[in-house]
């Protein structure tokens, strides 16, 4: 019986030392945890601002691009009418030159369409930002649990949490590698009879 009690005390002693050591470690990390939990809302806010700023910039580029597209449309229409008149007046050289201008306008039109298409980057950025915000929300929730469970006190200056940043990057990288290209999508569609 004494032997058993002795063993039990030993186990309890080990457990107590472990808890004490864990509490000290958490306490030592307290500034970083507090700093992280208080800075994350600001990080979320920065990311949301980033999303809004790219949207505003994209919409402005779109507005100007659409304006140029409309102007090109009007110019092309006028050029076409002038070319017709010149042809009836037997001015093939001038008509030919106007034809060249029309073809340059058409090339520019293609470039403008490509500019519009390229602006879809904003949608992809916004989706990544959304993912980051949800990851940050999750991290913040976990940190707050630590703060509540261990009663950590706010004490100090900011500290970097390289581990968290690393995890975020890994998640982003993972989502990038799981993305599928159009060619792969087409191959799969072909297997389902899409031709």
């Amino acid at each position: 019986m004494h032997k058993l009690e002795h063993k039990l005390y030993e186990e309890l002693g080990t457990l107590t030392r472990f808890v004490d050591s864990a509490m000290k470690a958490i306490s030592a990390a307290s500034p970083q945890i507090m700093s992280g939990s208080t800075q994350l809302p600001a990080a979320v806010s920065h990311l949301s601002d980033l999303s809004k700023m790219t949207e505003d910039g994209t919409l402005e580029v779109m507005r100007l691009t659409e304006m140029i597209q409309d102007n090109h449309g009007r110019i092309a229409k006028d050029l076409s009418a002038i070319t017709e008149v010149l042809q009836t007046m037997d001015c093939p050289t001038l008509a030919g030159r106007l034809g060249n201008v029309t073809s340059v306008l058409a090339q520019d039109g293609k470039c403008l369409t490509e500019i519009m298409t390229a602006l879809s980057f904003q949608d992809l950025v916004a989706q990544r930002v959304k993912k980051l915000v949800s990851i940050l929300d999750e991290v913040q929730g976990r940190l707050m649990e630590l703060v509540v469970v261990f009663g950590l006190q706010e004490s100090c200056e900011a500290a970097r949490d390289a581990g968290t940043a690393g995890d975020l990057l890994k998640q982003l990288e993972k989502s990038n590698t799981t993305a599928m290209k159009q060619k792969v999508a087409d191959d799969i569609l072909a297997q389902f009879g899409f031709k």
Partner: protein
Amino acid sequence: MAVDPNMRILVVDDMVTMRRIVKNILKQLGFANTDEAENGQEALQKLRADTYGFVVSDWNMPVMTGIDMLRAIRADEKLKATPVLMVTAEAQQSNLIEAVQAGVSNYIVKPFTAETLQEKIAKIFK
């Protein structure tokens, strides 16, 4: 089936920039009769209230996703024949298979080009 350039096209995306891009490209391709909706639910309301010949939809949207909207369209006697093109960054094989099983007419992965959109429209309406 020849493509009717006057057909009414509904562009569904929660991002205003994407709606504008898709509408712009459609216009450059000769389809100027377009309308837009911010999510699947709004799109369904519009589809039930008006006549549309074609739907171009995103996948990830609040309120109702593109895939749920697609299922609702296919389950609706009046709408089920409407061609639906999914334009999405949700580009995992499982998503594509899910879309095919739900009755998608074709699928474009973002970012895409005007040529890709033109090619898909031609395939849907050939």
